[in-house]
């Protein structure tokens, strides 16, 4: 089991208003699974993803990541686990504009203190895999959306994370590039990566093994789906 979350609650408070984004959510994800989180805007799916990805903490509940209770961890401890185990792909790519494709992909390795030689080897190999090596000296703003997202995926997997989290990975792409990215995620899953993805799109959700529907911060339903590409 890679993720085991129970009673996860997230409340956003401002001076006068209290909004419950997640209300006692239970979720378990096994290694090698591809899970899709679906639901209308504001249902809490991104919040759940952020908590699962250790970039936000729950207001209440237990969260075990790889068997370690991390729900109450402070940021620096979460950061330590995050950088070794989790890769992120976002709707808006979130590449660093000042870095080239190569440097963006290499960055997680730098922060993980990987040796220079190893860094070069792994970055090259991932870029080839994502078919981005011909663009490696370009800056993000010089790339198409699809290319940017491929770079983001490359960055997410360069460190061989146990878990890949994707937040609407095709949301800013046309259907052709969207399918390309989904194909890549599927492929990574086939190679053993665990993936949790937030999406609006039924089409994209079909790439997952399991689809979880959220509504008003609660899990409404869960369905196992047959893989389109087995």
């Amino acid at each position: 089991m890679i993720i085991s979350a129970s009673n996860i609650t997230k409340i956003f408070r401002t001076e006068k208003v209290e909004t419950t984004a997640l209300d006692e959510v239970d979720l378990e994800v096994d290694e090698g699974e591809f899970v899709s989180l679906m639901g209308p805007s504001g249902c809490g799916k991104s919040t759940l993803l952020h908590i699962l990805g250790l970039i936000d903490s729950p207001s209440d509940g237990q969260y075990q990541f790889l068997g370690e209770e991390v729900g109450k961890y402070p940021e620096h401890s979460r950061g330590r686990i995050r950088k070794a185990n989790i890769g992120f792909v976002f709707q808006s790519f979130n590449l660093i504009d000042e870095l080239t494709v190569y440097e963006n992909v290499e960055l997680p390795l730098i922060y993980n203190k990987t040796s220079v030689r190893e860094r070069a080897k792994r970055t090259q190999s991932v870029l080839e895999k994502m078919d981005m090596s011909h663009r490696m000296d370009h800056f993000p703003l010089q790339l198409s959306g699809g290319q940017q997202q491929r770079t983001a995926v490359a960055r997410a997997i360069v460190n061989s994370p146990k878990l890949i989290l994707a937040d609407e990975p095709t949301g800013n792409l046309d259907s052709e590039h969207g399918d390309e990215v989904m194909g890549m995620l599927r492929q990574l899953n086939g190679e053993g990566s665990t993936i949790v993805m937030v999406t609006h799109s039924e089409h994209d959700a079909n790439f997952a093994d399991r689809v979880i529907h959220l509504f008003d911060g609660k899990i409404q339903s869960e369905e196992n789906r047959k893989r389109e590409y087995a």
Partner: protein
Amino acid sequence: MLKHYLKVTLRHFYREKTYALINVLGLSLAIACALILFLYIRSELTYDQHNVNHERIYRIANVYTTNGKSDRFAASSHALGPLFLKEFPQVGEFVRFRDPGRGLYRYEDTAIFWTDVRLADENAFRVFTHKAIYGDLENALADPFAIALSESFSRAYFGDRNPVGEKLKTDVFDFRVTAVFEDQPDNSHLKYDALISMNVLENYGLSDQNASPQQLFSIGEYTYIFLSPDLDQHALETMFASFYDKVMSELGKRIQLSAEFITQPLAEVHFDSSLGYDELTGNVFYVYGFFAVAVFVVLVACINYTNLATARATKRAKEIGMRKIIGAERWQLIVQFMGESVGYALVALLLGGFLVVLAEAFTPLSSWLGKGALLDLSGEPLVIMWIVMGTILIGVLAGIYPALYLSSVAPLSALTATKRIRSSGLHLREILIFLQFLVSVGVLASTVLMQIQMRYVASKPLGYDEENKLSITLRGVETLERILVIRNELLKNASVLGFTESSYVPGQGVAIQLLQVENNQGQMERTTLNHIAVGKEFIDVMDIEVIEGRDFSKRLLTDVGTSVVVNETMVKNMGWENPIGKRIQEFNARVVGVVEDFHFASLHEPVVPMFLRPFPPADFSNVPPLQRPLQARTIIVSVAGEDVFRTINYIDSVISEIDPEHPFEFRFFDDLLNEMYENETNLMHLTSVFAGICMFISCLGLFGVAAFTTELRTKEIGIRKVIGATTLQIITMLARNLMYLVVVASVLASLLSYYVMNIWLDVFAYRVDIEVWVFIAASLVVAAIAFTTIAAQSSKTALSNPVNALRYE
């Protein structure tokens, strides 16, 4: 990792050119200022420390007290060294320097007047550190007719060649060049262009063998003790105290004068400005002041950096958040941001250094600072290291807050709106901008006050007419004996309006003497007095007002002895109800008139009690042959305002005909007067420049911050415009908060400036009062500049079509 940071910094630099330019420009200017001031302060604080032995060298100064009134003098008696050593041979050595006065030195066809030639004891080069270029400095002053030249002096006559063995002629003797030494560092309190052997005085019968205690009460040269290594300053003081008791006290009692010796460690001489008859001294107040300015300017630039960096947090939140998500730890981000600011500072150092070089080459900076080339740091790796360390410190200072602040951004900020970040940075930014205004208003107000004081000094009536007066020195008995001929010849020209003589012109030392003067009750009383010997027409030519009695231009049959004219202050000081007829014993003189106070000294000094006495008839028949060429007298020639230079040519021709030996030299009174305020004038120039730079850097920062504030509020501006706000209202809204800061900062800055300027103005005996309008004006100017800066920045958004602003989000 380092390479990665460097790359990112450079790319940020390139991508946000305006931001980078504001930072680099601000930091460069600040570092240039700080560099100049650091080097200036270093030079001031290391005065005379190039002397290897400086810790063992003491200058002996004196305090003379009579009738409860004390006078302090840097100069001491020629006999002090030898007599003191006779009593305490274990003390070490003494070295004396004596000023023979401005003199003409000739070699073949080259004849140049030099002011800073000194007579020095043989061991001067052994005690004080000099670098030899030619000759043997050890024995350079053994021969009574030896002269050792500085490099500049030598170059003026001999170019680059070795002059050792050549003869330089003066009016009296020929001197043989024995050595050439490197010019002294600028920060030497006693500067000389050449040294002549003190032994030359033996020709005048002045030798250490016949030094007598009577000579100890007349002063005229600087005496230094080179202390033996096993003694300290306290021991030296004790010796001088017992020396006084043993050798001088009896004699002192007889003439109602007591003396005390002050031992000044060499490195402390420069900052002691309490002594009369001293070389130009430094002012610790300026060192503190400049230090404060350096800190201010650097602070303002650091504040800019901090301000802009935190304002940019919104823009960088995505990068920071993303770095954190993919594994950056906080310390790594702190290193990255600190690295950026240190990088900026180092680039700014290069640019700042270049600015200093430019400033030294193309502005009068060096002369304002009174220093030579400041940036000549060859052979001073330690100083260069300090400068680089200082720059890194500036980088750290500027970057520390942004680094801590930016690295605290939550990883989620990469994904969500950044409202939280912007609001938390705002408070500190306001404080920082407040500080900038505080400094700007304070510096500006102080500069204006300095200007006002210097104008006051320049325009204050001095009690005489200083316009178109020339001061000319006549040299040698042959010329002086024909002074009447010169007078008559000059007065033949209609443009020469007046001619007189004076033993003293502005900027020179005035004779001070212990005299017996009749007090109000008719008894004789001892008091120290200044006096000037003048020509009979002096009061008339100088247009000094006689307020009681008469001047001494005409001698009445009833006059007994010498007639003297006193100034108002002397009347006041003596408490005379009826000054006419009062006696001054030593000159067998009686007061015949009282003149209004006049300022020959600078306005730093209050007018002192003094009297004018006529020169005795020009009879030089008793002057011994060796003294004859050394006799000199200053004449004052009043000329018409038109065609001054033609008149000067005429004067030149008359004097040169009578004295073809000496090149004709003259000084305008105005120049002599201005020279007395050189320090203050330079300070004023410097402060103006620094005030300008301070304001400029502050504006740069304000411009940047206004840009970011406007950007953050773009949507708000759009909405406000849609519902009816005018452009002016928008600009006012954006500027309002900053304007509040200006008001508060102005009040505080005014108080601080008032306090500091009061101290500065107290240097002057005659000073202006500080008026409130200066502070109001300075505040208004700063407010106006600030408003314009903000308006210029925000008007673009405020003027544009509101829909653009709305589309922004």
